[in-house]
């Protein structure tokens, strides 16, 4: 049974003239990384809020169709008990994800487990593992508000990793990270999938994704229009027609008039165009 299932799911924000998501069919399986991409406004961020149940429970507005998160409809108030602490959500701006009451990064990462009433020994052990996994153990005693954007983003991811969630929902999780940071998070997501979690990433950053994602779903105008293996989708033409984009090198190949399938990486580009 899929960790995430949308059947004809639609959603309209309160006061919005048109729906942000329309008649969306989507699934994400445990043990795999599903990457959603699309132009701004294509609906990938809304899909994550729907999966987390925050839309409509927190956003207000109207949902149509069926959404099942880990087998439960997340919009039901009673879903809190079944899903509490099992669904991780990471949003694009780290600063608004902080707990607001932590004086140190250690307390920040320990926020959710403490709220769930875990025994203290378990919290301490899981928190230090999470800090190590994100390579921020050296920041454990720093004040969260004084971290750089990249450090804060890692702290937010660590504060979700600590819960060992069954479903990851990440919206532009590496936007503030450098190349090394991005590679570290991608490797972490792969380990989480191997552990059995379902990982769903919404991001326009398609440059590294074909080495990370098992499946690429391209959204356009509020619903998925392409769904397939990343290598295949990124080399094709339809990803551009959907208003999304492939890698920088594929974009260059397209601008140079190359037909699909196009090179994705610098090495492939050199192989294609070198004398």
């Amino acid at each position, binding site marked *: 049974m899929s960790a995430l299932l949308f059947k004809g799911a639609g959603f309209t924000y309160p006061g919005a003239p048109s729906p942000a998501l329309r008649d969306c069919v989507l699934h994400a399986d445990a043990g795999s990384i599903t990457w959603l991409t699309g132009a701004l406004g294509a609906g990938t961020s809304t899909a994550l809020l729907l999966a987390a149940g925050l839309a409509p429970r927190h956003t207000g507005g109207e949902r149509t169709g069926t959404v099942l998160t880990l087998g439960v409809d997340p919009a039901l108030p009673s879903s809190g008990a079944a899903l509490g602490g099992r669904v991780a959500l990471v949003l694009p701006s780290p600063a608004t994800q902080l707990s607001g009451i932590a004086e140190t990064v250690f307390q920040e990462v*320990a926020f959710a487990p403490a*709220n769930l009433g875990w*025994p203290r020994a378990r919290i301490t052990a899981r928190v230090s593992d999470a800090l190590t996994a994100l390579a921020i153990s050296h920041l454990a005693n720093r004040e969260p*508000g004084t971290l750089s954007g990249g450090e804060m983003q890692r702290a937010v991811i660590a504060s979700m990793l600590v819960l060992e969630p069954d479903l990851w929902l990440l919206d532009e999780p590496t936007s503030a990270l450098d190349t090394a940071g991005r590679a570290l998070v991608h490797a972490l997501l792969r380990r989480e999938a191997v552990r059995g979690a379902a990982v769903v990433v919404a991001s326009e950053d398609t440059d590294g994704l074909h080495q990370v994602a098992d499946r690429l779903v391209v959204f356009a105008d509020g619903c998925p229009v392409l769904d397939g293996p990343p290598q295949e989708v990124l080399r094709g033409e339809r990803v551009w027609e959907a208003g999304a984009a492939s890698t920088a090198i594929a974009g260059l190949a397209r601008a140079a008039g190359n037909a699909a399938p196009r090179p994705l990486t610098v090495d492939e580009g050199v192989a294609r165009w070198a004398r």
Partner: protein
Amino acid sequence: MSPDPGPHVGRFHPFTPLVLTLCVAVLAVAAPGPKTAAALYTTTVVAVFLGGVGRAALRALIPLAPLWFFLFLLHGVLGDGDQVVILGLSLSREGLAAAVTQACRLGAIATASLTLYASFSPARFVDAVADRGWSFSTAYLVVATLLALPRFRARALAIIDAQRSRGLRLRGSPLNRVRAIGPVTFPLLLGALAEVDERGYALETRCASGVVHRTPLDPPLDRVGDRAIRWLAGAGAVAVLLWRVFG
């Protein structure tokens, strides 16, 4: 919330300075005359210095100075009733007594209050509340606000910089300044409201609503001494209050 709450006061359970501050406030309100008020103020200052947080007592003088000045002016110099000449100034005897009483009351309260603030550690307070199983939401609101203040002040300054860099002049005629209220306050208000959604999502995802019994990360020690101080001070304050009201 200075980084180091002072060598001694840091050892107390977080609730102890809280209860002591409330007791000082009750005693201050109940203090009948200048002598008792002055005694209370001096005792508070001495206790604070012994507690190793002397600078809080000194820092209290900043808000107190204008208050004391106006008390002396309003009740001493401008007070009516029979006059007495001190240092060439004709002052109202009764007004002066009232001014000293009030000055010492405010002194005791301000000193105790700033000592509480200097020794306040958000994490220990949240743990102390969690340890007791009391309402996490209330502790969250108090601590989240205190920790949000520096961020809001920084954002307010950034807004002024940004608007000035677009040509907004803050000085000039009063009308000009009132017209500048919108461009300066709205971004702070709209920015705060726009963040509410995302902050709410994060708190919901991290199980912050409907917390039943939260695990204290580092529960502060509540020694017998702490409890004794709290009960004695509390009983003493209530006794004085009852005596003052019904005595």
